[in-house]
């Protein structure tokens, strides 16, 4: 998986800006999909895209551009949230044409559901970087991987043990099933952690940010798009969490956002939205 990283170095952070930019590049993308132009000319129908709320704004924007394209004007695209799990379940079950997910289908649909995943094809559309954030007052600028592991596994309970103030550490986690948490555990910690007594779990990144900003001694993790002055972004092993560092491969904590579809999906539709989506981005980068 790692070797694909440089290929897909288009970052979600600048997504909106990219969308604005790619609007001008319609002609460029037509060349690459020219083989299907004749098929798509008469396309009509509706497409339902369900899943990750993190990916939803992006897909919504793309869907609007897609529908604005005269070639696809007869196709209605509906975008809904509901979470990565919902997206994968619905696309595997056939209720939705496209499932948006922050986790690969194979990772989520395990054991009994493994068969469902075989029929799904992932399209990688975006990269989301995730950074550890703390309350601005804890006085820590950079944390090593080992320090983060110690904090999130409950071994280190006070900020002074990692060079900060004398302040108890409050962990703000996402739920165990969250894609953001899985990514953070996999790439930043390298191990999965239990929920420690006294730790806080919040369903949305927005609430995590609010709690980390207000609660003295709090530490959490957020997608790069959520970061601002209210929380302190901590360097990971001395590397700053920025779009450029994700692009260059120096900053390792990020995940791929995918749009899945069933392999058996209508042949014509296959060539429309789902290929259209990543196509645009490849052109931009």
């Amino acid at each position, binding site marked *: 998986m790692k070797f694909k990283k440089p290929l897909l170095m288009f970052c979600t952070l600048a997504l909106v800006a990219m969308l604005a930019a790619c609007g001008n590049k319609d002609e460029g993308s037509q060349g690459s999909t020219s083989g299907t132009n004749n098929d798509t000319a008469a396309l009509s129908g509706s497409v339902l895209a369900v899943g990750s*709320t993190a990916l939803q704004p992006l897909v919504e924007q793309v869907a609007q551009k897609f529908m604005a394209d005269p070639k696809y004007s007869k196709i209605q695209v509906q975008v809904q*949230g*509901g*979470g*990565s*799990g*919902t997206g*994968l*379940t619905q696309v595997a*079950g056939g209720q939705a044409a496209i499932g948006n997910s922050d986790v690969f289908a194979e990772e*989520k*649909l*395990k*054991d*009994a*559901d493994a068969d469902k995943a075989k029929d799904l094809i992932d399209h990688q559309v975006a990269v989301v970087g995730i950074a550890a954030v703390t309350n601005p007052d804890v006085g820590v600028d950079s944390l090593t991987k080992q320090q983060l592991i110690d904090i999130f596994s409950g071994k280190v309970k006070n900020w002074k043990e990692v060079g900060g103030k004398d302040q108890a550490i*409050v962990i703000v986690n996402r*739920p*165990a*099933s*969250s*894609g953001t948490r899985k990514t953070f555990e996999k790439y930043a910690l390298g191990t*999965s*952690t*239990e*929920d*420690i*007594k*006294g*730790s*806080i*779990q*919040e*369903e949305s990144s927005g*609430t995590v940010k*609010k*709690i980390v900003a*207000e*609660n003295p001694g709090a530490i959490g993790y957020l997608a790069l798009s959520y970061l601002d002055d209210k929380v302190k972004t901590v360097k990971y092993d001395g590397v700053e969490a920025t779009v450029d560092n994700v692009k260059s491969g120096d900053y390792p904590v990020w995940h791929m956002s995918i749009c899945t579809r069933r392999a058996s999906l209508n042949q014509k539709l296959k060539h429309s939205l789902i290929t259209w989506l990543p196509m645009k981005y490849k052109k931009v980068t």
Partner: protein
Amino acid sequence: MKAMKEGHVQIERSRSGKFQKHHMEDLIGRSYTMLCVGLLILIIVSIIYFVASKGLATFIQDGVSLGDFLFGSKWDPEGSQGTPVFGVLPFIFGSFATSLLAALIASPLSICASLFMTEIVPSWGKKLLMPVIELLAGIPSVVYGFVGLTVVVPFLRDTFPGQGIGIAAGAIVLSIMILPTITSIATDALSALPRGLKESSFALGATRWQTISKVILPTVMPAVLTGVVLGMARAFGEALAVQMVIGNAPHIPRSLFESTSTLTSAITLDMGNTVMGSVHSNALWSMALALMFMTFVFVLIVRVLERRNRI
């Protein structure tokens, strides 16, 4: 009874053609209500069937033991240390602790408010206070949660040791939410009280306080308790507002100000991220089944109280 009614219609119809229309209306009305009731029963039965079939799959299909599920205190659905563990005791504890505490805070307030409205200043008290309390019932739970997170949690954090998040914050938010339920039921019971009771108490020379504490309150107690139980049922089922202020750590807390979780908040927290049919998702359904079972128990208690009320 039915035969009598139909016979009655038959006679009237034979007397004059005018009643034909009424007869039709009666028939349409009856079949319409029957249809609605039938649909309602169908919906209820299918919800129960759906939740039960999903919820029981955890035990039948996935082989989680019921004892471990209900009394296990470790919740690790994704198996961070190897095998997934599903113990929902912390959630059950959290649900009971928050709703009981909420009822404890809200009951005295609501009972006093309804006494104020019916006994102490019935003239303007009811006119002024009732709309305000009804307004409380209309505020969406997300607003309560947001206010709780921005006002109650920081206040508790600064006043007491701990993070401010936890059972205390949840109970305070819930107590305001269930205030209208208890108040309106208690007010109804108090206004339905026969005047004679109060008047004879006054005639015997009792003061207002003696009348309220010795005569009125004991008489309306079952009705007030019904209100308290209904309020608790609402608190038990509330998810959003609680989830925002309780912290959601799957552990039994050591203090009122430590992060913990309830059945409802645990379900909403993980719902969107689990895949339908997986063990994790089934475990959430089992928790929903437990919640539904608790609601039945609450309804049962209310029924028993109502029966006592009639005597």
